[in-house]
């Protein structure tokens, strides 16, 4: 799968240069030539009117991947409490397992000390089975300890897919495990598919790509891992064709947890990890819970976010008033965080939190792609901005062009009258 340019067909029209997001095409002697910036993203292929750019499939020996089966989820726990994202992934892992075949199972992998009690929670959220790896040395998360025991059990049991939450711990552990196993890892996925037909369904519903070259009846059961790249400007679907397991980290809040089935049962397999104190080369002296307010953006029904358009850090006082009035939490754009106006925990977007609340207020947010990537699946988006050309209006359900310092106080003042205002409009239309 490599993009190549066929010199004989290239007419030097430069259309591919404009299509390339990476400035990876140069003109040499009036012909297009790929340079080392090429990521083989294939954006240029449809742009070429002369079919001079093709995606070349390398014929090579395929490794035997049939020994690998089942879907594993790293059941991340901290101090004996399951992380939400792990429960979300158990549900997603189950969906993927069933897409592979009806007897493919989803396993939760619990690593820690005295964590057996959490197995029940894993079953209730959809796990068919739970691997339990307990050792006193695993009481706290360490890169070395967890990498060693997890890698060894993967090498032994051979899962087809291993999923991690893209938390600070998941993103520390997964790259080490993948590198030790010499397999591929795709970061921060927002969508996973097995069957080509489900991928086509997704692509047609949510993307602009042309799927006519994909065969819905294909027996390809590889994991299709879709993620934002380039600050959310581009989406890429990544595959791991020749190595196993296929590994991915998945953003918290993106997948949906299954309904909890109280009393659900499953298979438990205990694995005794082989671990010595000398294997762990770091010493976790202390784990401190932050005293600062925990901003639960992922669970919020309503989010009121502020951006650079607030003009001053004090603008967040007004955003907070709005949030208090509507029962929401305060979010922000990266620009406001970078300006030092508000803590990073409030940040919504590609490098912050991905959110999908019922109602999202974007106040003074221009709508950089990296912000949109983290909030555009909100059910309802309201944008208030001075600039009528701000990209945020492209995704807003309701747009207000105006001075947010004048508009927001009016929304706060009228909020309680919404019913009366609405009824008045119905009465009028009935007349």
């Amino acid at each position, binding site marked *: *799968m*490599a993009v190549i340019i066929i010199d004989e067909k290239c007419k030097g029209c430069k259309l591919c240069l404009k299509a390339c*997001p990476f400035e990876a095409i140069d003109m040499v002697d009036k012909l297009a030539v790929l*340079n*080392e910036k*090429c990521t*083989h993203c294939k*954006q240029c292929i449809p742009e070429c009117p002369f079919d001079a750019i093709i995606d070349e499939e390398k014929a090579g020996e395929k490794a035997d991947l049939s020994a690998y089966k089942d879907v594993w989820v790293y059941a991340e726990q901290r101090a004996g409490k399951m992380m939400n994202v792990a429960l979300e992934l158990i549900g997603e892992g189950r969906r993927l397992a069933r897409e592979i075949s009806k007897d493919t199972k989803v396993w939760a992998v619990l690593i820690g000390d005295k964590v057996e009690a959490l197995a029940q929670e894993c079953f209730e959220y959809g796990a068919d089975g739970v691997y339990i790896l307990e050792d006193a040395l695993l009481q706290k998360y360490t*890169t070395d300890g967890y990498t060693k025991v997890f890698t060894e059990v993967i090498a032994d049991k051979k899962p087809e897919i291993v999923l991690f939450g893209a938390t*600070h*711990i998941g*993103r*520390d552990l997964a*790259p*080490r495990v993948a*590198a030790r196993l010499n397999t591929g*890892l795709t*970061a*921060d996925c927002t969508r996973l598919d097995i069957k080509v037909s489900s991928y086509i369904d997704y*692509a047609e519903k*949510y*993307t*602009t*790509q042309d799927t006519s070259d994909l065969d819905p009846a294909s027996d390809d059961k590889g994991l*299709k891992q879709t993620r934002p*790249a*380039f*600050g959310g*400007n*581009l*989406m*890429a*679907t990544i595959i791991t064709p020749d190595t196993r397991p296929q590994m991915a980290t998945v953003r918290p809040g993106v997948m949906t947890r299954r309904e909890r089935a109280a009393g659900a049962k499953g298979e438990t397999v205990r694995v005794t990890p082989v671990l010595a104190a000398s294997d762990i*080369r*770091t*010493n*976790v002296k*202390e*784990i401190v819970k*932050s005293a600062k307010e925990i901003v639960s953006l992922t669970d919020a029904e309503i989010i009121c976010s502020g951006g650079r358009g607030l003009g001053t850090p004090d603008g967040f006082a007004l955003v907070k008033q709005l949030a208090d009035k509507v029962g929401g939490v305060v979010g922000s754009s990266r*620009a406001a965080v970078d300006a030092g106006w508000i803590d990073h925990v409030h940040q919504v977007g*590609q490098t912050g939190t991905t959110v999908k609340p*019922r*109602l999202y207020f974007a106040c003074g947010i221009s709508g*950089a792609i990296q912000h949109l990537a983290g909030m555009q699946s909100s059910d*309802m988006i*309201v944008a208030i901005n001075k600039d009528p050309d701000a990209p945020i209006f*492209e995704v807003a*359900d*309701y*747009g207000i*062009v*105006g001075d947010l310092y*004048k508009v927001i106080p*009016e*929304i706060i*003042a009228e909020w309680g009258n*919404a019913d009366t*205002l*609405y009824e008045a409009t119905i009465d009028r239309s009935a007349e």
Partner: protein
Amino acid sequence: MAFKIVVCAKQVPDTNEIKIDPVKKTLMREGVPSILNHDDANALEEALLIKDKYPDTHITVISMGPPQAKDMLIECLAMGADEAVLASDRALGGSDTWATSNALAAVIDKLGGCDLIFAGRQAIDGDTAQVGPQIAEKMDIPQVTYVSELEISKDMKRITVKRALEDGYELIEIDTPCMLTAIKELNTPRYMSISGIFDACKKEIPVWGAADLGVDVDKEVGLDASPTKVFRSFTPAPKGKGEMLEGETECDLAKGLLVGLKSKHVI
């Protein structure tokens, strides 16, 4: 023996400045500047702070990328790094994180190893946060990611770091040699100095290809060796544009909004 620090840096497009062509729905990259990745600047700054305190410290900035990435490395030299090396070769193109870490680990080996590898948490174009840990894995050294504070012992053997978690932090001790990744809370990167810029321009930046690094272009680096491949790529479908509210006064606008939200049963 000088304390040797290798800082891994990447030249990235400023993704904040990118816009989508509203008609063609393609990326508009004209005028988008290439910059030193933010988190990497924090990594370099922390290395420079160590050097400020312990002058017998040698900082080498390494990068992999096209020849133009030299500009970014000159900037790193002008900030105060001692030397810089660029791994650049057609054969390295298309590398995923696994293959990139093979190449960069080979660069560090060729430099004769080091006491501390410092990288940014993640690059703003790929956002993977994987290359740092994977270099550490290849070099078989311990790591701490998301470093927000750092204290190094006088004998330069032990580092105590604060590692940021979503809801707090961990205090971790780690012995050198090790790999750390920096987040922006760690420090504020300094500007280039005038004399730094002057000196930087006089410095030679070696460019090493796959052959210099002794990496296997079929099995270790480049597109074909990479375990992950791009299956498809596309621009996200924009959500359909909604209604722009009209009104004489702010009060009218607010009322219009509330009526709309009510009619759609959002509130």
